């Protein structure tokens, strides 16, 4: 299971420091577990597949996406319901993950990450001997 590190409101804006106007958003995620695999799906519209970065360091999983500005050129803003910015979200995984079997796929602005549990982390049945 994945636990969020810093609890953030959805789509919260955070200053990223260096870039003066840069904003980063918390992508909406779906997390479910099936057959000993934790699946995380994260919405990152506006991000190209090559600009997605997933890192797993010890138990800390970081999802990042760099957005390509898609504002039409020569146009001025009329009404705004969403803002553009990079995406960041951090989770800690409570289970050991089989690193060699992690699958990451990015399609139509959605990251799908499959994190299979390591064999040793799977619950083992312990036999109780009756004396």
């Amino acid at each position, binding site marked *: 299971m994945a636990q969020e590190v810093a609890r953030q409101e959805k789509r919260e804006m955070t200053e990223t420091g260096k870039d003066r106007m840069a904003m980063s958003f918390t992508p909406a995620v779906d997390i479910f577990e099936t057959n000993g695999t934790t699946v995380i799906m994260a919405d990152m*519209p*506006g991000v190209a597949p090559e600009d997605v970065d997933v890192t797993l360091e010890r138990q800390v999983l970081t999802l990042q996406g760099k957005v390509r500005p*898609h504002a*039409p050129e020569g*146009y001025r*803003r009329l009404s705004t319901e969403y803002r553009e910015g990079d995406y960041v979200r951090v989770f800690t995984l409570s289970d050991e993950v089989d690193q060699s079997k992690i699958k990451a796929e990015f399609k139509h602005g959605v990251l799908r990450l499959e994190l299979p549990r390591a064999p040793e982390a799977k619950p083992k049945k312990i036999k109780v001997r009756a004396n």
Partner: protein
Amino acid sequence: MLQTSFAPYGMPDPFADMRRMQRDMNRMFAGFGTAPRDGQPAINFWAGQDSIVLTAELPGLSQDDIELTVKDGIVTLSGHYPEPQTGEEATWHRRERLQGRFSRSIELPFRIAPDRVEARFTNGVLTVEMQRPEEDKPKRIEIKSS
């Protein structure tokens, strides 16, 4: 509209036309705005000289999941978010992504030429460029001297 502006020092103002255009455009788009609704995709609008651009975040959808119709000045965007492929016996921990069907209709400040609509869909973002019909564009009328 009935006003006469005299340029200072008797010099013709080279930017008067440009300013007038800007003013006309502001008037055309005055009062236009949309409000985000729960469970519906977020849409941004952009204004050009004689066109309007709509951009919408639709992550996870493919071209076939999106339906876009334009009639007169009303643009309708509808579709459905595909169900995540979970396999059997999935235990849900979090469900934040939008799901189900959606439909939004927005009235634009002017009519749209249906044959001059261009839509693109990349990385979960839909971009639709819509043009004003030629006959609706404001025309400059030349005044002949007799």
